[in-house]
């Protein structure tokens, strides 16, 4: 009994000390917690020395799942790149990995594919990555302002428009964008925190202003049955046949095998062009390989891979 009470008292004392700091505690700002979960040796930023590694199973890029659990903290050995990448690059990721390894023999890339908003939160809370590919200018700006990127390495990578996809057999018989407002139609959309979700909201607002009316916009949102937390999540609901329509990126439709989806395009003038950016993170202990990967992604080989999977080239304006 004595032992138990002593232990509990010790625990309580520590808890009290914690709560004493409660009244002046910080607001839940995006203050980065720099404590990293594994023993990553904190090498000075500028060196490119090989860093001692912990033997982790580096999975092949194709095996990286798009679950939204917090990513394990990988350490990087020379030549290995950990790329936190927007989920919409899921389809093209294995091609990118093999072409990167062909261009830089000995280099490997591991993709952590998830909604940009989830990856951004992970990085802000100390997750390790060498490269960050963002589907949202807003999140890129947020990370830049927070000092996460190495100066001068943030570059536009590719772009994507929003498109409406339907299951191949089109169960709700949707023939045009106007039909999306029909009562009883089930629509899947990304959550507004997901870059694809913001793009969709903008595109719908533009359509309401130019072609349809605000009532159409309201009806479309009334038909939404789920706000998914990543762009591929919407595509999955469509391929399962559980919803009648979904908003995804054009790349998802183009890269899918013929006949998987039916699509309805959104006119370019109303559409929202999502610009993807790539950047090297200051916390990377492997900046040489990270720079190689960024060069690869911006090179004609990387850009061709992206275009083959339905992404658009960056406009030169």
């Amino acid at each position, binding site marked *: 009994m*004595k032992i138990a009470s002593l232990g509990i008292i*010790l625990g309580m004392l*520590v808890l009290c000390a914690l709560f004493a700091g409660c009244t002046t505690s910080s*607001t839940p700002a995006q203050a980065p917690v720099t404590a990293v979960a594994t023993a990553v040796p904190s090498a000075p930023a500028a060196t490119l020395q090989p860093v001692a590694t912990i033997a982790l199973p580096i999975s092949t890029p194709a095996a990286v799942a798009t679950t939204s659990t917090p990513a394990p903290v990988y350490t990087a050995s020379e030549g290995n790149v950990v790329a936190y990448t927007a989920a919409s690059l899921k389809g093209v990721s294995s091609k990118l990995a093999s072409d990167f390894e062909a261009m830089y023999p000995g280099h490997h890339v591991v993709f952590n594919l998830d909604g940009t908003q989830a990856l951004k939160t992970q990085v802000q809370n100390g997750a390790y990555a060498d490269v960050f590919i963002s589907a949202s200018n807003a999140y890129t700006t947020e990370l830049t302002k927070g000092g996460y990127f190495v100066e001068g390495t943030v570059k536009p990578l590719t772009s994507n428009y929003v498109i409406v996809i339907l299951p191949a057999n089109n169960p709700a018989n949707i023939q045009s964008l106007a039909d999306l407002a029909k009562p009883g139609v089930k629509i899947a959309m990304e959550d*507004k925190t997901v870059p694809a979700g913001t793009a969709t909201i903008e595109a719908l607002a533009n359509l309401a202003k130019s072609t349809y009316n605000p009532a159409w916009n309201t009806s479309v949102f009334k038909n939404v049955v789920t706000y998914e937390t990543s762009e591929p999540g919407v595509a999955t609901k469509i391929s399962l046949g559980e919803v009648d329509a979904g908003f995804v990126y054009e790349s998802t439709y183009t890269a899918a095998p013929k006949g998987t989806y039916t699509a309805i395009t959104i006119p370019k003038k109303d559409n929202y062009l999502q610009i993807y950016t790539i950047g090297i993170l200051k916390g990377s202990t492997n900046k040489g390989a990270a720079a190689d990967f960024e060069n690869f992604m911006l090179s004609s080989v990387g850009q061709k891979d992206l275009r083959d999977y339905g992404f658009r080239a960056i406009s030169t304006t």
Partner: protein
Amino acid sequence: MLTLIGAAVLIASVTLYLALPVAALFVRITPDLFFSTLADPEVASALWLSLFTSTVSLAVVILVGTPFAYVHCRNAYPGKVIVDTLIDLPLVLPPAVAGVALLVLWGRAGILGRYFNILGVSIAFTTLAVIMAQIFVASPFYLRQAKSLFEQLDPSYEQAALTLGASPLRTFALVTLPLTAGGLVSGAVMTFGRALGEFGATIMFAGNLPGVTQTMPLAVYVGMEGNLSVGLTISILLVLISFAIMIAVRLLAQREVPRA
């Protein structure tokens, strides 16, 4: 002396490992921000939806599960062992898997769901789906408890009532239930807690729609990726509710069932 210190360190470290993360939630948000976020419609709708669906799920589990557990215990029937194992399955099955399974069965294109779809009944992506997911994952808590209580109960009480002329139903209601009530309620409270905290099956099967299917755990998840104060506020609410549940269970579990 050394053993004393060693044991104290052991207990302190276990206590801290469990308590510190919970404490950290309270430290990370100021009381002002917490109370002002409580007024956020997203928080209010998630809270109401969670409490409503968990209550309905609990009611269904109790109303169906109690007679089921009783009949299951008092009779030997072919396949009883399989049913016994199946009851425990949702405890071990990862919730996301449960969600996928429910979707594949009851979804619009699902094996059974397609017939409901023909009749015009939607199951997936509705509040009904939230309740079904919660029942699936939370029912073992009540069923196992009810089963073990009915098994342990001294049968001579029921036999006495029966010999005195009470019908089986009357015996069950006026003799069995009052004797096992304490344990049953504690099982019910655990079920409620589990249903309230369900995430994986809900997001798979019911989707994420504020006011319809966005329960508190889903709101925390989405909130932590966009609106930190909403995420933290709902997390704290869930902690407070969990504490209330635990205290209730401790108080209720003290009454023991008269054993054989």
